[in-house]
């Protein structure tokens, strides 16, 4: 337990000191501020534009940052042999994987909250008051990031950072289009249907974490659904982290 915390703390510290991350984050914050301008030229639809583009931007930048930080999390440690220093100490591979996961997840949650603070400020400035419903979308985004960190971490224990990033983007894309995909293949060949079905069961259904549209259009937020999505992320991430641990334990360093 103690070791998980020590490794998490160290991973968190190394992650938030990344210069490239600082660059992306500044860009993301400027983008969110920029929605004020987009709102002002939108003929009375200010808040709709600010909220939809703001939430989407926050999501997009959150995932870019996640891919960027997670894709090299394990492979770089193997390549640079920093793992030698850790795994020759009384640290199990499970502790290592969990420590790295929680450290990076904490960093990404913090970054998401930074963006959210600016977003809430922008909405208030544009006359929208405190945008409480958007908190639901932000919480879901953090859940999704947790699942996604675990996924990219697993890729990162298998492949180079570049390949891990590409796989991550693919999962993100497919994971958000599963229901569309199923509909699309309904009247197609059996083989295509089988592939779609397989994807549907293997790739996480990331649309469970997307209520951005509903929120912008003032539909009610279902708290139970948010909690259920959190549970889904938790279970999914647990399986992915277990696989990452198994892979790492088998590896000759």
């Amino acid at each position, binding site marked *: 337990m103690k070791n998980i915390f020590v490794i998490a703390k*160290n991973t968190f510290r*190394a992650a938030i000191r990344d210069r490239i991350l600082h660059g992306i984050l500044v860009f993301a914050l400027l983008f969110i501020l920029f929605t004020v301008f987009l709102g002002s030229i939108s003929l009375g639809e200010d808040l709709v534009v600010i909220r939809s583009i703001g939430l989407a931007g926050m999501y997009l930048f959150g995932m870019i940052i996640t891919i960027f930080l997670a894709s090299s999390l394990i492979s770089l440690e193997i390549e640079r042999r*920093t793992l030698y*220093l*850790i795994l*020759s100490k*009384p*640290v*199990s591979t499970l502790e290592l994987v969990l420590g790295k996961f929680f450290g990076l997840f904490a960093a990404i949650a913090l970054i998401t909250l930074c963006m959210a603070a600016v977003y809430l400020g922008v909405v208030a400035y544009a006359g929208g008051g405190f945008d409480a419903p958007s908190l639901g979308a932000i919480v879901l985004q953090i859940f999704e990031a947790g699942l996604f960190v675990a996924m990219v971490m697993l890729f990162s224990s298998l492949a180079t950072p570049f390949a891990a990033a590409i796989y991550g983007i693919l999962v993100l894309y497919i994971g958000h289009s599963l229901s569309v995909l199923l509909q699309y293949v309904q009247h197609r060949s059996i083989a295509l249907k089988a592939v779609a079905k397989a994807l549907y069961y293997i790739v996480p259904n990331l649309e469970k974490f997307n209520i951005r549209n509903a929120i912008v259009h003032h539909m009610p937020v279902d708290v139970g659904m948010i909690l259920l999505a959190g549970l889904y992320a938790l279970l999914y991430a647990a399986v992915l982290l277990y696989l990452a641990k198994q892979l790492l334990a088998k590896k000759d*360093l």
Partner: protein
Amino acid sequence: MIEIRNVRKSYEGNPVVDDLSLTVKTGSVFGFLGPNGAGKTTTIKMLVGLVRADGGTIKIDGHEPHDTPSREQIGFMPEDPYFYDRLTGMEFLMFCGQLFKKSYRKTENEYGEILKLVGIYDAANHAIATYSKGMKQRLGFAQAIVNDPAHVFLDEPLDGLDPIGRREIKGIIKKLHGDGKTIFFNSHVLGDVEEICHEIGIIHRGKLVYAGDVKQFCNGRTLEEQFVTAIEQERNSSMLTL
């Protein structure tokens, strides 16, 4: 005591360590020598549990290296160590120390003492990215002794150090020996090996060629001369059998 019995390891079908048996007594300074690619690093990685042997057994004070809790008593400095560039030397050493139950509660002062011992205290709060090769080597040494281990494994600890650094590290190794620690180290700097080791093992193409007393091996010549002769003999005899 370190006991290696009939240990084998191959990579992609090529034997890298071949039926190695070796005993290192508690409290001795043991030098593990051999030409490049002989299997020294692979052996040390098996000793600290980073690589699994294909066969044979390794026991360190009766524990297998893969037994995680028993690593409380082990220190390891890898060859050409690499660190997290964005951390400072002090942060990194504290991180390492906190991974041991033994040293979890060490204070910043105590970590500072270790950095002083290895001579990088002045750079304690600088990012590791700014360290020179020799400074990284010293930090690598510091993290290997952060938990005050009974067994210290060092993979070429003197590599990349200036003469003063070499003398300092040798001094620390002698002091560790005085404290009753067992030290197992790989090195190519045979003059230093002769100076600080009591016993040596020589490995060539994964096979043990010699294990025993240094003085006996030298037989009046320098360790380097004898080493070169021994390796050349091995090469010639393996040519004959081909």
